[in-house]
Structure formats: C-alpha cells, structure tokens
C-alpha cells in the first residue's frame, strides 16, 4: 500500500515537471497571429489540459501528505485530528465535510470555513499555537505548510459532491449577509470593493474573465479548483489565500488569517454556489 502511494507520488512528481512547462507553450506560437485570438486559444488550451489532468492532478501529492498529517498523532497533546477533530460530520469524519462548510460550530461559537476549522482543531485539540500557524499560513515556492496539505486532503474527500452550505442556520445566514456587505464595501486609495470586479456579469481585467460572485454560476467558478495547484511557481494554495490576494489587489491591508472576515466572505461566495458539484482540489494557472 505504502509502496503504491510512493510509486504514484513519483509518477506524479514527474508529471508535475511536465505541468510546469505546459503553460509556456502558447507563448511560443508565431507572433503573427492576432494577440487576442492567441490568448483565447491559450485559454482554450489550458481548459482542455485541465480537463485531461483532472483525474490525476498534482493536488493529489498534497492530499497524500495531508492524509498522513490527519492520521498522525501530533502537537504538544500528541493526538491525531482523525481521533479528535469534528468538521461538522462527526469526529474524524471527512467525507463531504468540505462542501458543507462554512458552517456554525457551537464549540468554537463561530462560523468557520474548512481551513479555519482545521486550524481550530490543531490549536484546541493538538495544542499547536495559533500564532505559529498564522506566521506562514500559505505555501510559497519552497515551503508548503501542514495546514495547506490538510485542507487539500479534506477537500479531496468532497470530490464530485454538491456544495451545501447550511444557509438555513441563522448564524450561517448572518455570516452570509455580513459577507455580502463586506464584498460591497468600497475603501482604500482606489475606492475598490470586491464587487468592483466581481459584482457584474461578463467583464474582464485584461483577458481574464471575472466571475460575478452574486450569481450561482459566477460563485461556483470562484469556488471551483480551490484549493488549487498553481502552475506558476508550482505552489499549492487554498481558498483563504485567494481571498487575501484579492484584498491585496484591492489595495487593502491584509486580512488576518482564519478570521471572521474571510469566513463570512467565503460563506457568501460558497453559499451562492450551493447545489453545484465541486470537483475537488484543482489546477490553476
């Protein structure tokens, strides 16, 4: 069993190298083609490539690592998440947990997205220090934090399941409505809100299509593929990271890690995607 996994990992690692090369291909096309069409072709090519790779994508490497972390006794209290952590489906149960978050957790008295909840378990159950996790919560080219692997593992166990954020729960509904207001809040030097880019239909920044997060379809395209393996740099990144990067481009200060603000925004976005099928950890450009 273990050998099989290792073999699969090696194969994936080799393929990972191929992935890293892939996005460069379109750029090598003759410059004579009109750029707009070339970029559209690049987009199409990427979509095709992503569809082909969906069954065995590099995210699986991180899922495997996350599985190991989930099941191992770790932290000052030397317990595993598998035997202590309740993601809303019962202690240790992860099937379908990712697509049913954010949700309200009475033990924490908070609405939590998947990443926030796992961090909470690491702190409360395993005894890790929140500040240590929050110091470098997201991956870079040389480092992938445990929490990223764990989130990817949990997300993988909701593959091909329907998004079902429990919006009927009044606490979740309140988080949703507050998140909706956060998305509309314009401030900063450029007067931007989330909705400046993501509140209307059919707009682009440069050639990048902008999903309208207020619609089911747009919200789903903001959810799909996270956590995702970003081929630029070969980094595994979570949905929390994506929220932060939006605020960066909005010229806002940085949202605190695993905070209410991010949980509420995710409740709004993922809640709007309810009923649609989540395909699992994905690939991003």
């Amino acid at each position: 069993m273990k050998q099989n996994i290792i073999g699969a990992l090696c194969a994936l690692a080799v393929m990972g190298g191929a992935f890293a090369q892939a996005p460069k291909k379109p750029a090598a096309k003759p410059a004579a083609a009109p750029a707009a069409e070339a970029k559209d072709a690049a987009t199409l090519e990427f979509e095709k490539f992503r569809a082909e790779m969906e069954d065995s994508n590099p995210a699986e490497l991180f899922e495997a690592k996350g599985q190991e972390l989930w099941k191992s006794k770790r932290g000052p209290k030397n317990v595993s998440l598998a035997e202590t952590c309740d993601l809303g489906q019962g202690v240790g149960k992860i099937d379908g947990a990712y697509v049913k978050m954010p949700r309200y957790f009475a033990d924490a008295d908070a609405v939590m997205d998947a990443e926030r909840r796992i961090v909470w378990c690491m702190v409360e159950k395993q005894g890790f220090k929140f500040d240590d996790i929050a110091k470098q919560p997201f991956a870079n080219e040389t480092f992938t934090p445990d929490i990223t692997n764990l989130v990817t593992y949990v997300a993988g166990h909701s593959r091909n399941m329907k998004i079902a954020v429990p919006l009927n729960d009044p606490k979740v509904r309140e988080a949703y409505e507050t998140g909706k207001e956060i998305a509309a809040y314009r401030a900063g030097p450029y007067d931007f809100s989330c909705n400046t880019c993501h509140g209307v239909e059919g707009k682009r920044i440069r050639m990048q299509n902008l999903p309208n997060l207020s619609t089911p379809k747009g919200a789903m395209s903001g959810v799909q593929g996270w956590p995702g393996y970003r081929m630029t740099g070969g980094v595994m990144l979570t949905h929390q990271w994506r929220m932060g990067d939006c605020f960066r481009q909005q010229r806002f200060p940085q949202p605190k890690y695993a905070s209410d603000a991010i949980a509420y925004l995710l409740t709004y976005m993922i809640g709007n995607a309810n009923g649609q099928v989540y395909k699992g950890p994905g690939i991003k450009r």
Partner: protein
Amino acid sequence: MTKTILLAAMATPFLIALPAAADADYRSQAIAVIKKDFQPRGQASLDRLAEDGLQAICNRTGNKPPKYIAERMEADQLAGVKFPADGKLMGDWKEGEKIAQSGRGFTWTDNPGLPVGGNCYNCHQIAPKETSFGTIGTSLYQFGKLRGNSAEIQKYTYSKIWNAKAFNLCSEMPRFGHAGALTEKQVKDLVALLLDPESPVNK
C-alpha cells in the same frame, strides 16, 4: 423606522434578548468585522479601511446616490483637481502608453518608492495594438479622433483621469490624481495618449 423599533423594544423588554435577525444592520456589522480582522502589511496601512465621505455615500446608497447629493459632491471633487502650473495639459503619448500598460502600485507587495502605473488597459481598450484589454471601462480607442483636442477637451480629459468621481460620483474608476497615485506629468502623458493626433489611439 429606528424609533419604531426602539419603541417596540421598550414596550416588550423580553424581545431585547432575542437576536434582531430581521432588522440587523449587516453593513455596520461588516464594518466592525473589517476593522477587527485586517492587519497592516507593507505600504497598506489600516487607515485604508476607513471610508472617506464619497466612499461612505456610495457604499450607503449601493452606488446610486440621490442626484442632489451627487451633483454637490461631484463639484467638490472637481474643485480639487490640480492643474500643472504652466497650463500645458498634453505630454508625451509614448510615455502615456507605458503608464497605461503598468498596473503597478499601492498593493502590499509593491515597493512604495517606485512610480505607480495607470492600470488603464486593465479596464479599457485604448491603442489598437494592445489586444489584451479589460472591459470594466468603456473603449477609449479613437478617443481624440471623435472629440478633437480643444482646450476644453484637454481639460476634461485631464480632470477625468485626475478624479473620475468629479463626473460620476460612484464611478468604478480610481481617482488617480486625488489619491496621489499619478503625478501631474503622468496624467499629462495619459492625456496625450488619448488626444494627441499622433497617438496610435487616434490613427
């Protein structure tokens, strides 16, 4: 409305303990959460989270302020536009093209010492050669060809780039001069990109 709620609450004190879900002011909750849940990073300090008067009006009205407020505030914004001392509003369109291409500036990863870009192509079609353009703003292709470059048009174009809110209070476009993002010279170069008959925009 608020008074009615207060009266109702006083008349039935036991209701106060219940969560006021139906009438909850989600906007104030959102602001409280934003104030609590952000941290400064790089040049992006926490003062950026506060709404200025214009942002507050746009946020409170869903970007549709009443006309009498919009007109008065647009006039205030227009009054704040700073024009170059020598009165010349058209710079170098080639420099303008470079500024239009750059999306740099003001994020927590940007070096605050470097010049800021205009972000123009992120949202607008401008010169025909650049086909990677966004569509949040209108097309500016042939901007000058359609309008000419009279003193009046130059003044309008300069003012619009300096402070788009002087003409449309809740426009999505940043107030590049007002925000201290673009310098007078940069705005002049962008005016030239849009209005100079030699600019590819007007060919």
